[in-house]
């Protein structure tokens, strides 16, 4: 039986290689830009992440942005961080999100507040990301709030968590993944891959434990427009690993347009490579402020047309779910 009935869940369960997109909500009280960006994703990806105040910069809430994404005809993956809410606020947002038709959630710790535009803010971190996964699972499977009180209508969410194959302590990262699976993660999205050997080393360790059979692993891909972006990530974003090959390739190109083309080529190469890696269930394309490149990447990586989820008759709430969630 399906846990949430989301398009993402159906496709993963049917064994399709899924494609996720990502968009940052606007730094404004305006839904138009979300609806416009939906055009880049509709028919090209299976679900889209809506970030939750990413890099600790205030944007429209991921709950409301996910709702607008639904209106724009794409299936949202609502990101939720532990930085800005305590356990009460998280649970109430999850209830509202489900009622609004949102069926996927990605549970994250969140970037530290001092990196954002309100460095003077208080970080909440009432739960950690693993505990958040556990809480959503409890709400869904036991119909209970974290405190144990029962609820009438449970939020049937497809639960995601993050993994970083590139950060230290490398060996512990696999155990950390196992903990998130035990806590209740249905799918995993990784940090963007710019270091294939390192990613494959991690996948080997994951396969040794058989974890890829217990959870759907969706690998991150980030297209970049210039060598500057890569160098920034290498020097200033902790926990990232960038292969010198990509830096060298982009460094040699002086023309801006040509560099963008090379950036697309690198992303497509990485996607193709990930598709061939055993145990990888899909890719998660996360272009920062460059959502419009998504259709091209999906097409050039040979991932079109996107599969349509087969309707399952068993289980409850399939019908209501598909009215909102599965439009392609």
């Amino acid at each position, binding site marked *: 039986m399906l846990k949430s009935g989301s398009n993402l869940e159906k496709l993963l369960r049917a064994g399709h290689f899924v494609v996720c997109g990502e968009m940052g909500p606007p730094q404004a009280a305006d839904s138009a830009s979300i609806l416009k960006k939906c055009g880049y994703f509709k028919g090209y990806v299976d679900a889209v992440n809506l970030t939750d105040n990413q890099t600790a910069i205030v944007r429209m809430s991921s709950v409301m942005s996910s709702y607008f994404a639904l209106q724009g005809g794409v299936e949202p993956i609502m990101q939720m961080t*532990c*930085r800005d809410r305590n*356990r009460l606020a998280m649970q109430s947002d999850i209830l509202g999100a489900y009622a609004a038709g949102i069926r996927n959630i990605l549970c994250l*710790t*969140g*970037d*530290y507040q*001092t990196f954002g535009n309100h460095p003077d803010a208080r*970080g909440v*971190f*009432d*739960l*950690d*990301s*693993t*505990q958040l996964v*556990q*809480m959503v699972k409890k709400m869904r499977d036991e119909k209970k709030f*974290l405190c144990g009180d029962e609820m009438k209508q449970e939020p049937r969410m497809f639960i995601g968590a*993050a993994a*970083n194959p590139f*950060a*230290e*302590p490398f*060996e*512990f990262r696999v*155990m*950390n993944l*196992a*903990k998130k699976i*035990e*806590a209740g993660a249905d799918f995993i999205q990784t*940090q963007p891959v710019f270091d294939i050997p390192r990613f494959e080393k991690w996948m080997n360790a994951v396969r040794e434990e058989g974890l890829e059979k217990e959870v759907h692993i969706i690998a991150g891909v980030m297209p970049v427009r210039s060598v500057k972006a890569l160098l920034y990530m290498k020097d200033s974003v*902790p*926990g990232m*690993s960038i292969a010198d090959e990509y830096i060298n390739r982009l460094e040699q190109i002086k023309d801006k347009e040509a560099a963008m083309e090379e950036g697309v080529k690198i992303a497509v190469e990485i996607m193709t490579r990930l598709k061939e890696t055993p145990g990888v269930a899909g890719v998660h394309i996360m272009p920062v402020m460059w959502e419009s490149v998504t259709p091209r990447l999906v097409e050039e990586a040979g991932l079109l047309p996107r599969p349509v989820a087969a309707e399952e008759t068993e289980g409850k709430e399939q019908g209501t779910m598909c009215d909102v969630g599965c439009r392609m």
Partner: protein
Amino acid sequence: MSKTSEKIAEFIESHPTLNTCALAAENAIKKPVFGCQDCGQCILSYTAFTCPMRCPKEMRNGPCGGTRADGHCEVYPDRYCRWWLIYERAKKLGRVKKLRKLQKPVDRRLEHTSAWLNVFAGRIDPPSWGRE
């Protein structure tokens, strides 16, 4: 724990002076040795005797995604990531498997109370002393 330990905890806690002394005794050891943050629900025995509450994000189950290549913290580059330290020490002490336990959310009511008394009173799980 047991009925007796619960009674001991109850007795100490019902006497403010005794209670203060117990907390002071615990702090006198834990603060200088472990940099105790006074969460009142100690899991040091599961985290290679390295306090995870000194992590800026108070991660009790594992590191966030920001540990630097040299094992340092993304927020405070001059410090080690708590979980990098925890893992290194767990390897040395033969306590890696203990890191696998899922740690439940912090009970904020127990902050600034004595974890020892909380164990005695049965409010939190007892420590896991044995090696693997």
